[in-house]
């Protein structure tokens, strides 16, 4: 692969369909793919997830939730519930000792509803009992007197001045206004369309769980599956009215997250019950409760318009995006930020008008999910780009390449893209990848409908779709985004051992492997122990926004450098040479010409060298409230997909036969884990395009189960060809670029485009259901 814009290019290929050999793991430094340190525990069933936690004398907590999307609570009677044998506590809003409010950006959500419930499933009361069934039975005996209120469940209606207010003063969470270039641009070719995106669920497999253990100092220790220990701790402390030193959190095994664990779930509830009963309390949601227990991806209603020259060169773009935030703010503000500032895609557009809105409704709260505002917008800008290509008679890939961003361009907020932006190259790569073999009707498992035996080839048309998208990495718009790492180096049993301690959540993505790789690389040691993740070290920031390898990786690197400097300083004193002339190489101190001067063991003796570093990424800035202009983001990550689908156009059933992708990751710290992120992220995007939707009618969730909320099975996912580019970002540690989210953003629009190509139907809403294709 040739370099782009002067960057040394490195391409890595993986074609997995014939792989039978295990990956080469190398020495476990960056660029290798060492085995996960938790892999053996996970395949033997010994890894302790939050729902596996157990404690002597433990009791079980359950939550009573509102059946109404909007109601006033006239009274709660817990008398009967308290009489159930085996019940230890029944709690309501009156039992919340601190602020009865939490929230990621605004503390607007009650720990337990007091006066109003604002969505179906809102927690109202808690029970602790010695068996979960006892607790469930007791919860059913709590009498809540609801006065049902009119619910606002259409986000468009929520914007009306006369709509009932979900919160005071009104239902608008954020209006992001972005204007750039001419006020009323004109263009010879204009295309405009409306789009809708349904509500997607993270559907992590490990339901929300935690164990709260009351401590002798009157505080509480909480073991919980989460994405960000310190933001949890801050909110729990406020609700409990306790100082941080009394509320200690430890990350337990996390069964996936994808944004759905950024907000609190069992956290405060389990602590309240533990403190009240004086016993350890475990709370563990079932699948149905999980659908009510976390925020979802915002559904979107969008209107887009592109104006272009007759050759397809964009003159202007306009978008109007409305995101349904549901009953509480969660991270709606930031999701609107992304849908607005990034929502026109990775294109050069001189004139822009964007209005992105987030509103309150009485629907389920929506917040973070992989792709965060970019996913919804991508369905719109990519479909409209195809429309424009067809209108001007230019090939669909070519029009994207023609308009694609390049390094040095300004994006729509006026920010200069100051590292690689290989839009055209990514598209070229996916276009040039081998196509899947033609339809083979001999095995129904390979056909749309599979063993459902709905076609033997009849009605099947093939379609191809392309998509290219981009996303910010890390937190934006002026947020002080950082991570903390503590690294300790010592000799144990004659061997150098590094211990790395961060609070950054491992949720399955492989951060712990990356932390080890960085320590090995920087310190030259083989053995690296990953300390349990807890709040006894500073914040690691959120495991979201594709940011941990960048930010916590940066922190670990910086802490290692500090440790190395301290070791060399010690060596310098002992050896009588300036530290600047010394290097740490393996477990040796060497001089300028590589001569070994001392062993690490000699320098350290029985001492440990430990350094803690708080590492911040480059500052970002708020955008101008009137124009939306500003350097809002720290880094951008680009990816492209090509989807090939076989569609039974008569029945509207789809089989994705290829989902191939190219992505620039800056530097693959762990190439195997990079592929894992790309495969899994692509599957989630495909799921939204074809099947995944929480169906909400009048504020009621109608499919809170894995029977009716469908995620892709292994028969739905095609083999993938993945090409990874490594154009180092000179501003990022090791040149890394966030990996996790881009594939979720570009895969769905490519699948939708391929289905449109096969069916020749407009299909402006995702997920595309069979009846949308058949028109019935």
């Amino acid at each position, binding site marked *: 692969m040739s370099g782009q814009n002067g960057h040394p290019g490195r391409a890595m290929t993986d074609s*997995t369909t014939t*792989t*039978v*050999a*295990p990956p080469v793991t190398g020495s476990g430094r960056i660029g290798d*793919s060492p*085995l*996960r340190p*938790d*892999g*053996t525990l*996970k*395949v*033997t*069933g*010994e890894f302790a*997830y939050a*729902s*596996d936690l*157990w404690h002597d004398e433990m009791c079980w907590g359950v939550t009573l939730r509102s059946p109404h999307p909007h109601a006033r609570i006239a009274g709660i009677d817990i008398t009967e519930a308290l009489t159930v044998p085996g019940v230890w506590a029944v709690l309501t809003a009156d039992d919340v000792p601190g602020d009865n409010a939490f929230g990621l950006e605004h503390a607007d959500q009650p720990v337990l509803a007091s006066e109003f419930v604002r969505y179906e499933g809102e927690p109202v009361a808690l029970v602790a009992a010695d*068996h979960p*069934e006892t607790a469930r039975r007791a919860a059913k005996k709590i009498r809540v007197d609801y006065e049902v209120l009119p619910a606002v469940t259409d986000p468009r209606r929520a914007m009306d001045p006369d709509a009932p207010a979900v919160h005071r003063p009104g239902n608008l969470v954020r209006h992001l206004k972005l204007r750039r270039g001419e006020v009323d641009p004109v263009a010879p070719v204009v295309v405009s369309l409306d789009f809708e995106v349904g509500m997607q669920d993270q559907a*992590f*497999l*490990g339901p929300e769980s935690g164990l709260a253990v009351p401590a002798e100092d009157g505080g509480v220790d909480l073991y919980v599956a989460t994405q960000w220990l310190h933001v949890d701790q801050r909110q729990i402390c406020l609700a409990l009215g306790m100082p941080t030193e009394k509320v200690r959190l430890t990350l337990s*095994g*996390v*069964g*996936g*997250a*994808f944004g759905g664990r950024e907000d609190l779930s069992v956290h405060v509830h389990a602590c309240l019950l533990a403190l009240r009963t004086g016993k350890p309390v475990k709370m*563990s949601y079932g*699948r149905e409760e999980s659908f009510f227990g976390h925020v979802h991806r915002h559904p979107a209603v969008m209107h887009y318009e592109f104006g272009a020259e007759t050759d397809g060169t964009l003159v202007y773009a306009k978008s109007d995006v409305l995101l349904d935030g549901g009953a509480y703010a969660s991270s709606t503000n930031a999701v609107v930020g992304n849908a607005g500032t990034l929502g026109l895609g990775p294109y050069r557009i001189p004139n822009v008008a964007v209005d992105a809105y987030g509103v309150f409704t009485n629907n389920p709260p929506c917040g973070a999910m992989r792709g965060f505002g970019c996913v919804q917008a991508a369905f719109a800008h990519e479909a409209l780009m195809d429309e424009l290509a067809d209108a001007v008679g230019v090939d669909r890939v070519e029009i994207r390449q023609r308009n694609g961003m390049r390094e040095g361009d300004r994006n729509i907020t006026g920010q200069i893209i100051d590292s690689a932006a290989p839009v055209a190259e990514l598209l070229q790569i996916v276009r040039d990848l081998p196509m899947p073999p033609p339809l083979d009707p001999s*095995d129904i*498992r*390979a056909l749309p409908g599979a*063993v459902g035996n709905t076609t033997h080839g009849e009605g099947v048309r093939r379609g191809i779709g392309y998509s290219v998208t981009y996303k910010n990495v890390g937190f934006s718009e002026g947020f002080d985004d950082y991570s903390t790492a503590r690294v300790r180096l010592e000799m144990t049993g004659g061997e150098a051992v590094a211990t790395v301690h961060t609070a950054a959540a491992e*949720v*399955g*993505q*492989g951060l712990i492997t990356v932390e080890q790789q960085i320590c090995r690389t920087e310190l030259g040691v083989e053995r690296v122990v990953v300390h349990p993740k807890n709040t006894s070290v500073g914040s690691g920031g959120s495991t979201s926004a594709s940011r941990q390898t960048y930010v916590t990786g940066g922190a670990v690197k910086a802490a290692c450098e500090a440790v190395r400097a301290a070791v060399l300083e010690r060596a310098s004193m002992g050896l009588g040479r300036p530290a600047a002339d010394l290097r740490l190489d393996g477990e040796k101190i060497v001089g300028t010409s590589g001569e070994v001067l001392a062993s690490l063991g000699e320098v350290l003796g029985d001492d440990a060298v430990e350094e803690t570093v708080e590492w911040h990424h480059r500052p970002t800035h708020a955008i101008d409230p009137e124009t939306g202009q500003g350097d809002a983001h720290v880094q951008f990550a680009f990816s492209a997909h090509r989807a090939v689908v076989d569609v039974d156009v008569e029945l509207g059933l789809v089989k994705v036969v290829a989902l191939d992708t190219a992505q620039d990751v800056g530097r693959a710290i762990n190439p*195997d*884990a990079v*592929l*894992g992120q790309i*495969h*899994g*992220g*692509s*599957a*989630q995007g495909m799921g939204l395009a074809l099947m995944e939707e929480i169906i909400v009618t009048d504020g009621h969730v109608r499919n809170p*189960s*894995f*029977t009716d909320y469908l*995620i892709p099975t*292994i*028969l739905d*996912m095609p*083999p*993938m060809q993945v090409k990874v580019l490594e154009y180092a970002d000179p501003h990022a540690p090791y040149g890394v670029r966030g990996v996790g989210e881009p594939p979720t953003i570009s895969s769905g629009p490519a699948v939708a485009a391929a289905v449109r190509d096969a069916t020749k139907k407009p299909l402006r809403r995702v997920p595309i259901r069979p009846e949308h294709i058949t028109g019935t």
Partner: protein
Amino acid sequence: MRVTTTVNGTEQSVDDVWPGESLLYVLRERMGLPGAKNACEQGECGSCTVYLDGEPVCACLVAAGQAIGREVVTVEGLADGERLHPVQEAFVECGAVQCGFCTPGLVVAAHDLLARVPSPSDLEIREALAGNLCRCTGYEKILDAVRLAATRQARP
């Protein structure tokens, strides 16, 4: 209710079982075997797959009493002491494990598949594992792992 069953070769008895409990609950909360996972409790994800009398089943859908006197093998019972079963080994080596919540169920399902079909085609693997949802991997590396395990098991 008392439930006595042979789990991973050892007979175990537990008392005071509520008859509405599933085998999954009994294994996880009463017998100290949390390997089988509780992801959906409706047979739609396969995370709780265990062997019951030699057949892979969803432990969440077996009533505790139905397991009385039966042979249960869980993911905890597949390794030979410290030595991983080839299927487990392949899952680790191929990167088929991310969050790992689906892994115990997939390992048991793949173990069963390879015991019945030593060299499955990709479509056979896909049909056999279609009852095991994974949200992290997109299944690519799971297929790799099953292929690798099949290759290794084929060697004498």
